[in-house]
């Protein structure tokens, strides 16, 4: 089945040769905090509400936030959120923290539109709001720390796959659910980029496996059994699906015959990379992402990061660039390989 999903947003594939698209200068389109008290240099209380808690990825961002808070010294940060990626519960969590009176909110949105009203409420209550990982509508938060742009991730994934399975290879995708916004965007961008730059590659199908280890494994295994030698590569779209797909390939004895490329955290992938079953894992460093988000929030609270700024200082990460009006770019996605994967621990 071909990909029909995602959202109605236009895709914007990057140039095949990797020349960066000229950044479009865009005026600040974030939201404004009303009646923000003077927080400059004062201790602040911050809550981080990720999409869900209890998965490796958000454990890592949460660690980055904690690291940054400790480094800054004047931030009291904690992470709390739903146990399932559920828009409604996430909203309730944020709402409760607004009532309890925090100074800053960090979030990774389960749904950009659904989360907007409650974030606007936070802004109206004088709370600094910064997103990371998954954006909301721009005017519902001040800043968004973008780990890597959708089209950048798409390019990185598809290029890596093409390198491993050849320009005429066939591949399939294992994703969480078709409704997860980030994954849906990535897949749309991947489709567009593959069409444009690797037109002979064949996209076999996309299967859903929720954020469930064993289900991902079963789905990937079935893909291998179904397509046999036709299947040259599997994309894992989540930090759950990628190791499970690698496991499926391993247990099917297809290492080296079926490539696994995907978004994943290094720790979960180390065994497969070590055994050469997986050659490249694409991801930014989620610890850095959380770290940058925390610094951005602090800067916004201090009044150092104002609309119109072109960069922000983020501790050990240095200066980060502002793009798209109100987004802060963490950097290009990172490709973990056998050579460097053991340098990371998250």
């Amino acid at each position, binding site marked *: 089945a071909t990909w*029909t*999903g*995602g*959202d*109605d947003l236009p895709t914007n594939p990057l140039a095949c040769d990797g020349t960066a698209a000229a950044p479009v200068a865009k005026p600040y389109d974030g939201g404004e905090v009303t009646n923000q008290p003077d927080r400059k240099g004062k201790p602040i209380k911050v809550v981080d509400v990720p999409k869900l*808690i209890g998965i490796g990825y958000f454990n890592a961002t949460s660690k980055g936030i904690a690291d940054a808070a400790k480094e800054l010294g004047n931030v009291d940060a*904690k992470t*709390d*959120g*739903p*146990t*399932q990626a*559920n*828009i*409604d*519960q996430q*909203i*309730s*969590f944020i*709402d*409760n*923290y607004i*009532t*309890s*009176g925090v100074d800053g909110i960090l979030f990774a949105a389960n*749904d950009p*539109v*659904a*989360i*907007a*009203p409650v974030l606007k409420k936070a802004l109206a209550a004088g709370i600094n709001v910064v997103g990371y990982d998954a954006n909301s509508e721009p005017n519902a938060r001040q800043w968004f720390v973008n780990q890597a742009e959708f089209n950048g991730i798409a390019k990185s994934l598809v290029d890596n796959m093409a390198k491993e399975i050849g320009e005429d290879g066939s591949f399939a995708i294992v994703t969480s*659910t*078709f*409704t997860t916004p980030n994954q*849906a965007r990535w897949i749309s961008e991947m489709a567009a980029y593959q069409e444009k730059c690797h037109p002979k590659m064949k996209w076999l199908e996309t299967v859903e496996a929720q954020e469930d280890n064993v289900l991902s494994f079963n789905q990937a295994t079935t893909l291998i059994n179904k397509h046999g030698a036709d299947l040259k590569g599997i994309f894992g779209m989540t930090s759950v699906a990628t190791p499970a797909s690698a496991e499926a390939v391993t247990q099917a004895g297809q290492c080296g015959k079926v490539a696994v490329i995907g978004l994943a955290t290094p720790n979960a992938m180390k065994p497969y990379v070590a055994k050469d079953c997986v050659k490249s894992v694409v991801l930014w460093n989620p610890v850095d992402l959380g770290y940058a988000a925390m610094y951005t929030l602090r800067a916004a609270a201090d009044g150092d990061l104002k609309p119109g700024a072109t960069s922000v200082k983020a501790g050990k990460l240095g200066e980060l660039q502002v793009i798209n009006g109100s987004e802060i770019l963490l950097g290009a996605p990172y490709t973990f390989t056998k050579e460097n994967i053991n340098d990371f621990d998250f």
Partner: protein
Amino acid sequence: MTATLRSLLRHETILAILLVIVLAALATQSDRFFTTANLLNQGRLMTEVGLVALAMTFVIVTGGIDLSVGSILGLTAILLGVFWHNLGLPLPAAMVLAVLAGGIGGLINGLIITRFKVPPLIATLATLALYRGLAEGISQARSVRGYPEWFFVLGQGEVWGVPTQLWILGVLVIIAAVILGLTTFGRATYATGANETGARFSGIGVDRTKMLIYTASGLVAGVAGVIFVSRVSTTRSDMGTGLELDVITAVVLGGTSIFGGRGTIIGTVLGLILMQALKNGLALSGVKGDGTIVVIGLVLILAIVASNIFSRNGDG
């Protein structure tokens, strides 16, 4: 007060006392808990669960259960978007049609249960998957957004300083309480749950009663779906996932017997408030989400244990 009323109210009394204690305790933990603004806001957040819990009370009193409500909510949300955005219907018409579609979902549950005598748990377990699947299939994972401003009055606005949907919940609570407590239909509901054969042999339209109740359950889930969309400004096919567990917890906490024949709307409302107060109050007191879940689980078990012990002492 008559003996029945007393015995019926026993669990509710315990619950009410428990609620007062919990509210007092939470108020001492955080001075932001017991404020009008917070309480009204909590009312807004619990409306969808509350609406569905009202219908679920009837369902459980008949000795049934409806696990498909969360999926119906998701399906109506999607249909609202599809009717309005893809089919170009006026939004009010789309709202009505979406709610009706929820009713049809409930009607199908009722048909499977009454015509084919499939136990409600199994029937709605199947439609739980079916309706969610339809929502996914119809939406093809697309969201519908960009609703006009007036539509958000329902889920985000206020009327006389009180969240709009809380008025709807309030009105429906009264209607449900009157129907279940005072009318012939309510009596038929209790009789059906206590002894279905006996009710049928007494000239009660048992199947009709059940059909109406399951249909109403679907309709109310549809209304909750529309309110939900208005509250969060978007439609997604995974809306309402897991709603059934919250709803059933509220109803059971409210003293409705899972075996049927016993339960009140007052109890359900108390159960609902207790649950929401715990979620909110604990969060405000600095307890994390997972800790709150644990507390709610414990309260559910302890409340039922307590009322069992008290009522057994009472009955002898």
